[in-house]
């Protein structure tokens, strides 16, 4: 690829304008010259490319920290003091050629003075359009990711870093201290595109970590020990279940027995109650019997008394009959009695009507004294009637007594029967003591309650144990599956581990080869540039001694000194000094140890004369065919700022002479003074020249074509 042009609008120190670039023509002219005084915008121009392509951060540039924005400083300051809502923008447009297509990449940054913000807010927008070989221009692409992808395929960010050499970087590479190590390491890292392989390694390690996590997860729950634990738990639970089932069956059986016994006891107690009732009835019957007997006795007594008193009347019926006949046959007026006399006396007249005389009255009164209340017949008759009546009454009473005694006797007989029955029933019932039965019943009730609780509880326990056992079974099954998964994971881990090793090996091998190649390129370029001025001196990129501050160091040395040293060196001491394993010391490491021990200091010019071949070595490496598909092998432009400043003599001449061969497109930024020094060697290869002039009134660079 090569750059066609770069155009600015309100961008940093540049006045609006365009710079065009060409690539090597048939006359071998590849240098695009940018001439500017110091502070004229050379470095600014150099970093405009990475700003457009990969959003270069200006604040990383020394001396540019105060202006980390793309907008022209003057406009930026005006915007800063303007009222809220003011907007301004800048843009840079790069045209470049790649694979027969012309790409136009425009980056616009809009600055907005937002209300409430102390600083200016900026927003970036990129547009990439492609003009195909056929002349057709595709619509611009604005998706950042898509643009990055296309750019990364054409000129990877790291490659871009490997082809841009500014003064600061050159200084860093040329220095004799450890800063050069960092510089060289950075460039090599960029140009060998190690980011890709490191990213691959990072991704592989992440996959490995994930597999490890899966394995750990699987292992956490696997292993025969864990399975054994589960098996034991299942067995223990099964044992519990069996015991509980047996317990349940026994409890059920016992409960039935208990219930049956309780029924028996209840029955017995019922019988007991019945017997108690019988007993009570018996007592009652005996009591009644006793009463009846008493009553009978009384009745018999009454009967006897009655019989004694009136019994004779029953047998004097004939006597009375005879007596009555006799009386009736006697002349005793029936009815002559005191009452009759009293009646006559009261009337004062006789029955015949004759008036009673005093005498008669006295006779009557005397008679009256002798007369019974009734007359004798009447009295006897009355007595007989009375006796008859008494006889009847006595008969009635005796009959009543007899009936009553009979009735009582019947009752007695009944009660005797009942008592005999009760006694027989009571004597037949062989029941225990009711208290004992009650106690037993109470005990059985407690046991029944216990058994019922147990019977209610056991199914739940059995169920819970069954669920738990099933859960363990399922866990165990899962473990068995996990164990199988672990095996699968182990296979995957084995693969990813091999992959990691392979990638690490690949990274190391590629780096080793890249460093060897860059070292070769460096030596070759160095010899070309310093052929006559630095006789006997050589340069070396340390790459086999893995020690911080040593690896990647670019050192100058005299070949002869190193050769002499090599044959007499004490490698063991050197190994100790550089922290190497003496037993595994390689020839390359020996050579590097000898070089390091014989390194010579670099003057500023000598340092610069190392930096330029190093830049060429890097560029040559970028463009060379690689051992793998990771690194590109494309031709890239070479952008270099002030390379000749500290060079002189043959070094200056040779560097200048060789510069055009560094790439098909060299964009060289140089001061007029430096250019004048190398003009004779550069001018034949100059493709285009642009002058950057600092405007007198403003702090701006004016782009002008010469």
């Amino acid at each position, binding site marked *: 690829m090569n750059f066609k042009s770069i155009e600015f609008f309100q961008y940093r120190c540049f006045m609006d304008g365009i710079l065009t670039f060409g690539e090597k023509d048939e006359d071998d002219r590849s240098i695009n010259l940018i001439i500017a005084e110091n502070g004229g915008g050379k470095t600014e121009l150099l970093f405009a490319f990475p700003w457009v392509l990969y959003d270069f951060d200006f604040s990383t540039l020394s001396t540019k920290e105060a202006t980390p924005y793309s907008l022209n400083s003057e406009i930026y300051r005006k915007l800063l003091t303007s009222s809220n809502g003011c907007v301004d923008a800048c843009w840079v447009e790069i045209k470049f050629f790649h694979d027969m297509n012309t790409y136009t990449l425009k980056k616009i940054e809009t600055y907005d003075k937002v209300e409430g913000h102390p600083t200016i807010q900026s927003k970036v927008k990129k547009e990439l359009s492609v003009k195909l070989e056929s002349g057709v221009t595709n619509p611009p692409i604005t998706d950042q990711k898509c643009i*990055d992808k296309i750019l*990364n395929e054409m000129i990877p960010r790291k490659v871009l870093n490997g082809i841009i050499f500014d003064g600061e970087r050159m200084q860093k590479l040329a220095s004799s201290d450890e800063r050069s190590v960092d510089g060289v390491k950075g460039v090599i890292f960029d140009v060998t595109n190690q980011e890709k392989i490191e990213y691959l390694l990072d991704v592989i390690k*992440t996959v490995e970590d994930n597999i490890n996590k899966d394995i750990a997860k699987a292992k956490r729950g696997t292993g025969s020990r864990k399975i054994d634990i589960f098996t034991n738990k299942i067995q223990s639970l099964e044992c519990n279940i069996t015991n509980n089932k047996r317990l349940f069956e026994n409890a059920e059986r016992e409960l039935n027995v208990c219930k049956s016994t309780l029924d028996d006891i209840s029955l017995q107690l019922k019988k007991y109650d019945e017997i108690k009732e019988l007993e009570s009835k018996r007592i009652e019957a005996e009591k009644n019997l006793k009463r009846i007997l008493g009553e009978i006795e009384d009745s018999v007594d009454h009967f006897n008394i009655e019989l004694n008193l009136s019994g004779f009347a029953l047998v004097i019926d004939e006597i009375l009959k005879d007596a009555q006949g006799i009386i009736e046959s006697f002349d005793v007026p029936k009815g002559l009695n005191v009452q009759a006399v009293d009646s006559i006396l009261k009337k004062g007249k006789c029955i015949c009507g004759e008036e009673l005389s005093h005498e008669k009255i006295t006779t009557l009164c005397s008679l009256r004294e002798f007369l019974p209340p009734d007359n004798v017949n009447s009295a006897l008759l009355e007595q007989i009637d009375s006796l008859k009546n008494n006889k009847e009454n006595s008969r009635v009473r005796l009959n009543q007594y007899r009936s009553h005694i009979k009735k009582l006797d019947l009752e007695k007989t009944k009660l005797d029967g009942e008592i005999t029955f009760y006694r027989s029933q009571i004597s037949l019932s062989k029941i225990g003591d009711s208290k004992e039965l009650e106690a037993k019943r109470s005990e059985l009730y407690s046991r029944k309650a216990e058994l019922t609780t147990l019977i209610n509880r056991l199914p739940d326990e059995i169920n819970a144990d069954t669920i738990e056992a099933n859960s363990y079974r399922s866990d165990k099954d899962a473990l068995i599956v996990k164990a199988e998964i672990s095996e*699968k994971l182990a296979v995957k881990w084995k693969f990813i581990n*091999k992959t990691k*090793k*392979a990638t690490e090996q*690949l990274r190391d091998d590629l780096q080793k080869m890249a460093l060897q190649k860059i070292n070769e390129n460096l030596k070759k370029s160095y010899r070309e540039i310093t052929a006559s001025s630095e006789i006997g001196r050589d340069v070396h990129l340390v790459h086999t001694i893995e020690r911080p501050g040593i690896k990647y160091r670019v050192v100058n040395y005299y070949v002869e000194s190193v050769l002499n040293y090599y044959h007499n060196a004490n490698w063991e001491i050197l190994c100790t000094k550089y922290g190497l394993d003496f037993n595994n010391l390689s020839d390359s490491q020996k050579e590097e140890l000898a070089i390091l021990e014989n390194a010579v200091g670099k003057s500023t010019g000598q340092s610069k004369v190392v930096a330029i071949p190093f830049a060429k070595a890097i560029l040559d490496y970028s463009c060379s065919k690689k051992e*793998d598909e990771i690194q590109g092998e494309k031709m890239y432009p070479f952008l270099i700022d002030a390379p000749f400043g500290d060079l002189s003599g043959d070094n200056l001449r040779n560097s200048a002479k060789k510069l055009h061969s560094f790439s098909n497109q060299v964009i060289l930024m140089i001061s007029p003074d430096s250019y004048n020094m190398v003009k004779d060697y550069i001018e034949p290869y100059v493709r285009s020249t642009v002058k950057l002039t600092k405007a007198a009134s403003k702090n701006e660079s004016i782009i002008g074509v010469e």
Partner: protein
Amino acid sequence: MSIVDNILRDLDFKENEIELYTKIKMEVFLKLSNEDKKTLVSRIEKMIDQEYSE
């Protein structure tokens, strides 16, 4: 034989493993700039899963 082939051979990669490794490598290199790592890792894991589930 390329440097990668030599390394893979030395590490006893089988044919299917070489193929898978190449696929992974290309997947990473192709998606380097426009895909987040998580998605990429996930896809590579799927590739490996697929290979070892067969």
